[in-house]
């Protein structure tokens, strides 16, 4: 997971791209952002991409304590945002597609499996307080 996450500067950009891909491929996800300008390259999407990237970077730095590290975000998603769990899979998929576009052969099957497992673990923690 860590080598795939080394390019810190561009994390925000990649997360923004992943969000754009998610909105385009899975339009139902847009329902959570009625207050956003969702046109590609919008400041809203860029800003949100940076937020998502920062949270994921923190998670990467604390792989052994995801529940502790993501506790506040977990509360936020459970009590305020209430994003249906199915959507985390959609964003995770698009994050991996984005990585695949940028890393090409460097996203080996093993690295792909690790990232998939990582995103699934993050999603589990973020939805852990839903009920």
């Amino acid at each position, binding site marked *: 997971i860590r080598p795939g996450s080394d390019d810190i500067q561009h994390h925000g950009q990649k997360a923004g*791209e992943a969000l*754009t*891909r998610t909105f*385009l*491929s*899975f339009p139902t996800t847009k329902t959570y952002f009625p207050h956003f300008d969702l046109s*590609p390259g919008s400041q809203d999407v860029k800003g949100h991409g940076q937020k998502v990237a920062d949270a994921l970077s923190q998670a990467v730095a604390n792989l052994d304590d995801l529940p502790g590290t993501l506790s506040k975000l977990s509360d936020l998603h459970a009590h305020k945002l209430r994003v249906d769990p199915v959507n985390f899979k959609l964003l995770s*998929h*698009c994050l*991996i*597609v*984005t990585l*695949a*576009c*940028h*890393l*090409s*052969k460097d*996203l*080996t*099957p*093993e690295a*792909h*499996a690790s990232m*998939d497992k990582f995103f699934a673990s993050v999603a589990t923690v973020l939805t852990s307080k839903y009920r």
Partner: protein
Amino acid sequence: MVHFTAEEKTAITTTWAKVNVEETGGEALGRLLVVYPWTQRFFDSFGNLSSASAILGNPKVKAHGKKVLTSFGDAVKNLDNLKATFSKLSELHCDKLHVDPENFRLLGNILVICLAEHFGKEFTPEVQAAWQKLVICLTEHFGKDFTPEIQAAWQKLEADVANALAHKYL
């Protein structure tokens, strides 16, 4: 019946023309078996699947991957008629192979990731969206034969078998 716009068809067919079906098929199936190891349940006869390198080097995986992706090629040529094109294969996967339709979704997404890897920046969000539409469509077509009625019949059969097996315990 899902309708593909002219732009979506162009995105799909242009990408497809550059795909090496043999190589990408093996890669996609291999990745499915590595990233989601529980999918190996359908391939007991394939021999050594004990590690990522074993899976990716396995000749049966490569051959089957090529077969699967060749079928995808039929989808690309028949975007306006996926239902008829896949009617027989859908029956096969439902009635004979008993594959949970969720697996088609997983394979579809793995294929999208393989395409992203090969095409890099060319695999724009718009191109991806056209492919997602195709894989979602195929997943629905392959899954549709597993109707609630067929499922109910299987549930009943499974319950009857379980009861028969438990019968001698009492």
